[in-house]
């Protein structure tokens, strides 16, 4: 679940199953966006195999992605801290968006 793969020198990707009971609704979307914005890297997400990647730092777009419970979320990032960004987002989703210092 926490597989990350190095696509090229600075781009990292990962995927994780969305375990949240009601999918990617507003509160998880806010948490994901806030976390993504902590990284310099450009971070994108999508529901597995969706045609378009979504900017993970755009709360409006993340809320609108309507990822359902049980779907797989793909994450990719490029930039200096891309690996850490992917790992952090995978962890956030895998642990079901815990409350805390997000």
């Amino acid at each position, binding site marked *: 679940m926490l597989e990350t793969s190095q696509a090229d020198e600075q781009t990292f990707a990962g995927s994780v199953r969305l375990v949240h009971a009601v999918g990617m609704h*507003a509160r998880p979307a806010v948490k994901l966006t806030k976390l993504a914005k902590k990284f310099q890297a450009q971070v994108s997400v999508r529901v597995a195999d969706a045609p378009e990647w979504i900017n993970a730092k755009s709360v409006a777009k993340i809320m609108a992605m309507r990822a359902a419970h049980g779907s797989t979320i793909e994450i990719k990032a490029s930039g200096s801290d891309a690996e850490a960004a992917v790992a952090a987002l995978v962890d956030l989703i895998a642990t079901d968006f815990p409350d805390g210092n997000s």
Partner: protein
Amino acid sequence: MTDTVGIVIVSHSADIAKGTADMVRQMVGSEVEVAFCGGNSDGGLGTNVPLIIDAINSVWSSKGVAILVDLGGAETNSEMAVEMLEPERQDLVVVCNAPIVEGAVMAATEAAGGSSLAQVKAVAEELSAG
């Protein structure tokens, strides 16, 4: 710098204003300052310029303040409140053209990352950009 853009919520209804602020605090967290005002001095529906100015002052930040409003008078009274601030502060306060609840949550989410006032306003207005 930990300074973030402040958020002010102005509704005709005190209940809506408070409820919107509650949603922002619970969903986004406490790193962003949020103030709200709503209702007139008789406890009825309405908005009040001095209360809006108080709300702006209570969340004042060197990065500025973004105001989210509901209907008509909330917007015009908010603009009037901005005009009554000292000239050097007027450019640091914006009224966002966005739905009040969604706009407030998104503006605060953007502000939490330390974004500029212009970025916060742009994100809040993304919904109405359609």
